[in-house]
């Protein structure tokens, strides 16, 4: 019942945000309708950064406490983060072509986003290739921490590089001025996507927990079967 009411609430928020983005927000002067993807785009990025912050906290917490729940939280957060990142990159590319005439540019923010995407996909691949649950949790947590350390370095290095070699000015200087109504719609969209993100995160966490329990039960059953076989052979021998 609680789950249903939360999902209904999240869906309602999304509909409200979508309505706001399409109809309430004023039309942008140069790009007109296509600019409205900005609300989805920024919302997805905020979801990604939130998810990856949660992932970093979970990674550190696992290494500090050795409680399995942090590992489950970590993988759930990274998966949500990767999906948000993919969405952010896709909406960015789709917006870039009509708005600036280019699909992509290698400035600090985009490059960092791409590298983050690659790093967290590598995290998920690493997890897939490690079998022992404890070792998988530890090694992926270590990699996750390294990945989080790397992200600001990528941003800084790219910034330094691009100021030395000024890139062609494609961006009209975003964040220079944002109309108040647009700003409000943006905030609504960000607050609408966060419940959805958390909902998916919690579901994924529960799935991971159930997998873990199923695995424990399976191992316990194997032990019992082995035990039973030993008893049978002893009694028949």
């Amino acid at each position, binding site marked *: 019942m609680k789950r249903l009411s939360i999902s209904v609430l999240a869906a309602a928020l999304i509909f409200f945000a979508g309505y706001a983005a399409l109809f309430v927000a004023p039309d942008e002067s140069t790009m007109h309708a296509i600019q409205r993807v900005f609300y989805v785009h920024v919302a997805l990025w905020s979801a990604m950064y939130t998810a990856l912050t949660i992932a970093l906290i979970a990674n550190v917490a696992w290494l500090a406490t050795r409680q399995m729940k942090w590992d489950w939280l970590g993988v759930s957060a990274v998966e949500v983060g990767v999906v948000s990142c993919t969405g952010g990159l896709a909406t960015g590319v789709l917006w870039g072509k009509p708005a600036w005439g280019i699909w992509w540019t290698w400035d600090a923010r985009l490059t960092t986003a791409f590298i983050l995407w690659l790093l967290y996909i590598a995290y998920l691949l*690493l997890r897939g290739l490690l079998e022992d649950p404890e070792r998988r949790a530890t090694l992926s947590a270590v990699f996750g921490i*390294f990945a989080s350390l790397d992200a600001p370095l990528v941003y800084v290095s790219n910034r330094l590089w691009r100021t*030395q070699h000024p890139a062609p000015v494609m961006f009209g200087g975003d964040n220079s001025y944002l109309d108040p109504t647009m700003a409000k719609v943006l905030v609504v969209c960000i607050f609408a996507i966060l419940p959805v993100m958390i909902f998916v995160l919690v579901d994924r966490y529960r799935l991971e927990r159930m997998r873990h329990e199923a695995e424990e039960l399976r191992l316990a059953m194997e032990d019992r079967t082995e035990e039973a076989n030993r008893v049978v052979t002893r009694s028949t021998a």
Partner: protein
Amino acid sequence: MGTGRAAAILLAKELRLEFRTRELLTGTVIFVLVVIVLFSFAFDPTSADSRRYGPGLLWIAFLFAGSLMLHPSFAREQTNQTLDALRMTPVSPFAILLGKMLANFIFLAIAEAVLVPVFAVLYNVPLGGVAGRLALVLALGTLGLVITGTVFSAVSAHARMRELLLPLLLLPILAPLLIAAVEATAALFAEQPALDPTWLTFLGGFDIVFLTASWLLCDFLLEE
């Protein structure tokens, strides 16, 4: 036993092991040589173009060679479970890691010392005047490469498909290192060569950040 002394002993072990067969070193040198030759087909290696693209190509060659060469670092320890033996000795985990990092640094440094002159000759880039400064840039960049590479070699040693996994984990992490190293090298390849302090500081910072991170997390890397 102190970390420094333990690391030195382990370094000596690694070097002795490698210099018996020299297979890793030879393989790395040949691989980088092949990559350098293949790059010559990517653009016309006139002197001007070589100065422009050379640093990037050189560093990509070293990154690829490094990510292949760093893999046996911990994978070797799996065959006879020698890592368990190492763990049972009274040395700190960081000493084990440090010994391997230093050994890998020496191997890569030897490969680079052989190949940078070869590159200079094949691509007509005069590097005589900047040899010392170039050595500094190469050292800082290689240090970052081996620090992160050795850590990820430990991470991927337990996984399946480790040969593919190591470059997959390592190369995205090294993106800022690549930018910094290429820019610093490009400054030395230019008509008026100069040491760029921004990028050198960045390289140094990168090395320190990841060395500290590996020191803090080394227990988890080497645990059972």
